């Protein structure tokens, strides 16, 4: 059951990493989420999610180059692991399954109600 754990925000972050592909590092992820979803992302929330994803083994990080723009601090690029990919798929399948199980009437009621 609890094979793949992925919180809501974690799912957003890992999806964004997938979108950014090779360019996924802290600020880029933050900007991408903020741009696409029009919601504020705090550095704290995002990095906590990244740390969790990493400890779960869904992503790995690679130290990047130190740039002048960051006053010598290195970037850390994230990549999705095979396990991470399976977790993403699992999440999507679960959603789809649930969507499929909803009787049509319920949605209609929802719409009219």
């Amino acid at each position, binding site marked *: 059951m609890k094979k793949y754990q992925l919180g809501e925000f974690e799912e957003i972050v890992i999806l964004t990493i997938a979108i950014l592909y090779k360019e996924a*590092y*802290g*600020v880029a992820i*933050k900007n991408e989420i903020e741009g696409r979803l029009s919601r504020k992302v*705090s*550095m*704290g*929330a995002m*990095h*906590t999610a990244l*740390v*969790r994803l990493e400890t779960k083994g869904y992503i790995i990080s690679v*130290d990047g180059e*130190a740039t002048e*723009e*960051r*006053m010598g*601090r*290195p*970037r*850390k690029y994230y990549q999705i692991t095979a396990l991470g990919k399976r977790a993403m798929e699992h999440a999507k399948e679960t959603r789809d399954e649930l969507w499929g199980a909803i009787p049509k009437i319920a949605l209609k009621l929802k719409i009219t109600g």
Partner: protein
Amino acid sequence: MPYTGPPRAMLRLFRWYCHPRLADHIEGDLIEVHREWISKHGQGMANFRLAVELILLFRPGIIRPWQSPQFINTYSMYKSFIIVAWRNFQKSKGYSSINIFGLAIALTACMLIVLYVRHELSFDRFNEKADRIYRVNNEIKFGDNHIDVAAAGASFASTAKAEFPQIEAVTRIRWAGSLLVNVGDERVRQQNVGFADSTLFDVFTLSIVAGNAKTALNEPNTIVLTESIARKFFGTTDVLGKTLNIDDNKTRKVTAVIKDIPSNSHFRFECFIPLVDDDRANEDLWAGAQNYATYLLLRPDADPYALAVELNKMMDRHVGPELKMIINKTIEEFRGQGDFFLASLTALPDIHLHSNRLGELYGTGKIEYVYMFSAIAVFILIIAVINFMNLATARSAKRAREVGVRKVLGSVKSSLIQQFILESVLTCALAMIIALALTAIMLPQFNILTGKSFEVDVLYSPSMIASFAALVLVVGLLSGSYPAFYLSAFQPVAVLKGGSGSVRRSMMRNTLVVFQFVASVTLIAGTIVIYRQMDYIRKRDLGFDREQILIINNGRQVGNRIEPLKNSLLSVTGVRNVTVSGFLPVSYQRSNNTLFQSPTLDITGAMSVQEWRVDDQYLKTMGMHIAEGRDFSKEIASDSSAVILNESAARFLGGSGMIGKKLYTPNDATGKSVRELTVVGIVKDFNFSTLRQQVAPLTLVYGKDQSSIVLKLDAGDITALMSSVEAKWKSIVPELPFEYSFMDADYDRQYEGERQAGTLFTVFAALSIIISCMGLFGLATFMAEQRTKEIGIRKVLGASVYGITSLLSRDFLRLVVLAVAIATPLAWYLIAKWLEGFAYRIDVSWWVFPVAGFIALMIACATVSYQSIRAAIANPVNSLRTE
């Protein structure tokens, strides 16, 4: 304007709380967004937003865990310290054992002294109200008489209680002498009996095992026993309501049983009988007699100083009329002559160490001894600490390479200092464990020396353990600090280059050795002088003969059989003389009187004197000499009003022409009837108190006091003589126990305190020398080792064994000589101070100091020469072969 980054304080804050693994790139992210914000919103807004981000970043997962990963590093550092310490210890067992055993001996001495000092300082503090209890002293001066007694008149207590509301309770205590108790068929003499008021338990904390504290001492003919006495008489402590048969004709009912009075109480009575049995306890006497140790328990808010002033006013009101009656002077006139009558208060905890007045219930301690022994403890400890420092710095060459390597590998000075201090604390802790064992072993001996009774478990009380731990830390820090700074200051380049490793002559080291020997020489000189003074006291001509004098107690119970007893004792061959009197130069039976030179009892020329009732055989038996006039005689009837003065009394009264002089004394407190005494003789001065005091005026009157029977024996077979004396005693008074003592033993007992102090002093002096020599031995060994090659070359070039020995010893012996020079004036001063306490004392002879120095020098010589000679006779082939 170029971008300068976010405020440094913000980044520092972030780095402080952030997990080190995440810090770098999150910081990078922060800088990147901050730069962007500045270009969009300006500096202020950017900083504000950054601050918000910092707050939001402060969450689990990002902040640093509580146990920092650096902890593991320091842990292994300390582990390495301990391993290295252990390896060093194993590598040089000799030096390490000198260090550890030196410290262990010093700590043992220290612990014993701590026990002693703590016990002395703890006197009477077990009383719950100790800080509110005060004892009343009376200080009286009239004419040339000046006495300060630890007691007050009989009615002082009740009057003070009635007059001053700030006094919560009062109680009085007085010696009741001894009781002869019938236990089965036997009679047992019970010493340590005290009279006490029924309020005794209101003031003092004496825990009651059975009985009622409020009523225990209310009724006449009752008695309160301590547990051990109850067991002694009845075999059980369940004795409430039982009766004791006393002195053949009286009974006393046991009304309470109390716990044994602790050894740190200033009175250690074993039973109490009520003061209502003492006829004189209700006398309204103020000036006449001060016989009652009077204790006041003040209310918590009372001011003892203010009360003392009030108490003096009260004294004036009552002493005044009494003076008027006896000497016909008002208190103002009395004062006008420079005479006075004062009351003062001594706080209960101060009685033992700070009060040494006449009439203290039990002998008191001396604060001087507390200071002296504390000083010795510190001295000994310092000597051991110096050993540690000296050996550590002398052997520093051996550790220099380690220090060099540690420094090259990045060790900072502070952690090296930590290392050496940790090492010394460990050594000290090891020494403390050995010292604890040593102390436990020594404790019985120490009890004999000090006359105290410490149990081994006092060592394990929490407060003692805490103080021992503190001692370990202090000594460890002290002895480790100098070597730590010395060793950690080595330059790695210098020590790793491969220098010869020879040790510089150290000024500091020499100073320390000198200090050690100054202490040792002072202690040796002190020991010599104490022994000579004790010897002087033992051998001094006291004006009476104390050898072969037998004192038999229980004379009072003999009653009117005393004459037949006397005669039958005289008939024993070997008994030269028999006298009957309780007033002896060694015991405490004393009686004070005041003699006036005119029948009107004019106070000028009045003399406060001892008045001893003796018989016509007294002077002969005691071997005292008549200087002028004659002894009492049975044949002369008028001798019942005759008096013999001692030389001091004669001097007091004006010197010559004393024979035939009349002296007057009031018969009772009213001063109405006067007794006339005629001087018939003058006896040579003899010491009747300790040699700490000058011989005071004394009078002998012809009277009856039969508390003791004193026999002068011929030298010879004492055992046989004693058994025939005992046989005579048994034939006349078979029911009384035959209790006796010898006067010379009683005399020696008076100097028990000095003797104990002397013995302790010697023991500690010896210890300090042993420890000093251990250090010197270590140093000498090391120096000889260092100079092995030099000695080898010298020998090859033709140096003699003598030459090399003296070369090696010279340095040390020079230090010892310097120490003697410094110690002489110091010791002289201290010794002179101590001797001031004796009215009769030896002069400090000049030779004491050279002798003490010589002893120290000889011991040092023996210590050093063992190593020097060993080095000097070694075959140079061995020392030069290896290169």
